[in-house]
């Protein structure tokens, strides 16, 4: 707090800024949490009609239903999880070397390559998937998990590559040479020097990729052809059917990974940054 060390006349100004900071934090919290509140209420409501501020009657039937075998929650959860994890893994395997190349090396056409990598984020997903659909049909990649995983890579890879490119742009390759000069083999350098150095960025990128895959609707719907029912698809089914109570309960489960990841990342990212970039520079 810069204000603490200021002379007396500056104090009201400092107080004003502190107050503003609290206010904005409170607003942000309300803005993020408030929309979730009705969902939570709905999931425990037994009928909730217009002028009532709160439901007339409460009940657990929505939770009973979604936890039953007929709802298909566990199948969807499993499919969403498997798809997201495989997508993260592939994103790391592709994004790490690609990000290293983009972060380290200068080559002709680098800007063009960066633009092409970004393109899937600029072009609307539905436009991309329309074109891909016919191609995927020909390749037998529709109506199955493999096709859905592949199509999820379209939005996750750009995030992963750009995050890793940023990490490697701040990474001093001299550390790897130093490790080699201390007798580490190539593989040992990757494991014991590169990996720990890029870990914060790698984790952040992976969490991004996970959430992007987790929340895909249109790509899953088109390529999965209704056979691959991930959690967002299940959610939409009930939402369009007007079952607000079940939608509310499902939505709470659906946002759970996001909340967990947000909290984990906040702690992790504020706790330590990409240290290697700061130390060791002359």
């Amino acid at each position: 707090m810069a204000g603490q060390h200021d002379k007396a006349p500056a104090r009201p100004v400092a107080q004003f800024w502190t107050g503003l900071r609290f206010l904005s934090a409170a607003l942000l919290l309300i803005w993020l949490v408030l929309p979730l509140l009705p969902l939570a209420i709905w999931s425990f409501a037994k009928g909730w009609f217009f002028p009532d501020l709160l439901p007339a009657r409460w009940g657990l039937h929505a939770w009973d239903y979604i936890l039953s075998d007929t709802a298909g929650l566990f199948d969807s959860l499993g499919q969403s999880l498997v798809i997201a994890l495989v997508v993260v893994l592939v994103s790391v395997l592709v994004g790490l070397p690609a990000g290293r190349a983009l972060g380290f090396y200068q080559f002709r056409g680098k800007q063009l390559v960066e633009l092409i990598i970004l393109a899937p984020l600029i072009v609307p997903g539905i436009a991309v998937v329309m074109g891909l659909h016919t191609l995927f049909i020909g390749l037998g990649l529709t109506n199955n998990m493999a096709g859905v995983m592949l199509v999820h890579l379209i939005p996750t890879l750009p995030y992963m590559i750009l995050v890793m490119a940023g990490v490697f742009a701040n990474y001093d390759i001299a550390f790897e040479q130093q490790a080699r000069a201390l007798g580490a083999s190539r593989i040992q350098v990757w494991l014991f020097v590169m990996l720990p150095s890029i870990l914060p960025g790698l984790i952040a990128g992976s969490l991004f990729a996970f959430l992007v895959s987790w929340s895909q609707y249109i790509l899953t719907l088109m390529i999965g052809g209704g056979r691959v029912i991930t959690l967002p698809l299940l959610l939409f089914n009930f939402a369009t059917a007007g079952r607000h109570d079940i939608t509310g309960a499902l939505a709470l489960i659906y946002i759970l990974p996001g909340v967990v990841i947000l909290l984990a990342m906040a702690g992790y990212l504020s706790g330590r940054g990409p240290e290697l970039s700061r130390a060791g520079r002359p």
Partner: protein
Amino acid sequence: MTQVTLDDLTKTYPGQVTPALHALSLEIRSGELAALLGPSGSGKTSCLKIIAGLLSPSSGDLRFDGQPVLQLPPEQRGAVMVFQNHLLFPFMNVAENIGFGLKMRRANKAEIDRKVAEMLALVRLPDMGARRPAELSGGQQQRVALARALILRPRLLLLDEPLSNLDAHLRLEMRDLIRKLQKELGITTLFVTHDQQEAVMLADRVGLLLEGRLKQFDRPEAFYQSPADQATSAFFGGRNFIPGTVISGRFESPFGQLELPGQAETGQAETGQAGTGPIKKGPAILTVRPENIVINPPKDAENRLNVRLNRMVYLGTHSEAHLQLGELTLTATAPAAALAGLAAGDALQISLPKHALWLLPG
């Protein structure tokens, strides 16, 4: 204990015409502390990286104890390099940093712990093992980097500018530590530096690299007393260069004939080398160190010249006299008291004692 032979090592970077390193041949004796000295861009760090195995030379050969090692990857050469900016791994504590090399060799944990404790004591940082590198001062980081290399008992230790990131008082301490450890452990060591002071005060022998070429590889004194050429002499503070020709044991200069020491006489003081160097006749450059010029010599002194005093510069313990000799400027230094009373514009006589003269290729 390893003898290191560099044989015609040349490195030309892609897209460049002039080599960064030009046919460097050098032999470092077993257990020796050798320095490569040169300004930045002279190819000295390239040379270290080639020896460490981090860079491939364009041509030439490198042998440890007569065995070619260029084909070996860095981890099999046994040459360990300490980089200029320490490069301690920030995600490890001090003890883990020092133990890194042993861990890579898959030594067992008890052995690593024991040796790390030994090294911490050796570099006088006991109880610092649990600290993070960022919590250490520059001098302490340097000592950790040294310990991290020495723990491996390398065949050859390579140091990149080991003293240049340190404050003046730490430099002396670090110099003593490096010399002590190097002699105690008997590890053949090569370090590079841009600072002649650093090279002279640390090394047994110094190699001077200018524009990728090795000018001279010799004991530190030799660079002051018997430099190989004018650029070498100038790099070590030589400032007096008189062009002329050697004719039958005498030096013909535009300012008259100067006596050279005979074959039997000793050349520049303490070199032990007879005469004035390899040049026996033909064009040459005569040099004499500023501290060896005698101002207002006795009447019978040899090689007397008439000069004009341009300027006096007071430097505390001694003074520097800038002397005009025709178109040349000579510099002489003497105790401040000895030069007191002289003023700019005075006509003076100086003597260039025979024993202090040295001939450079003209």
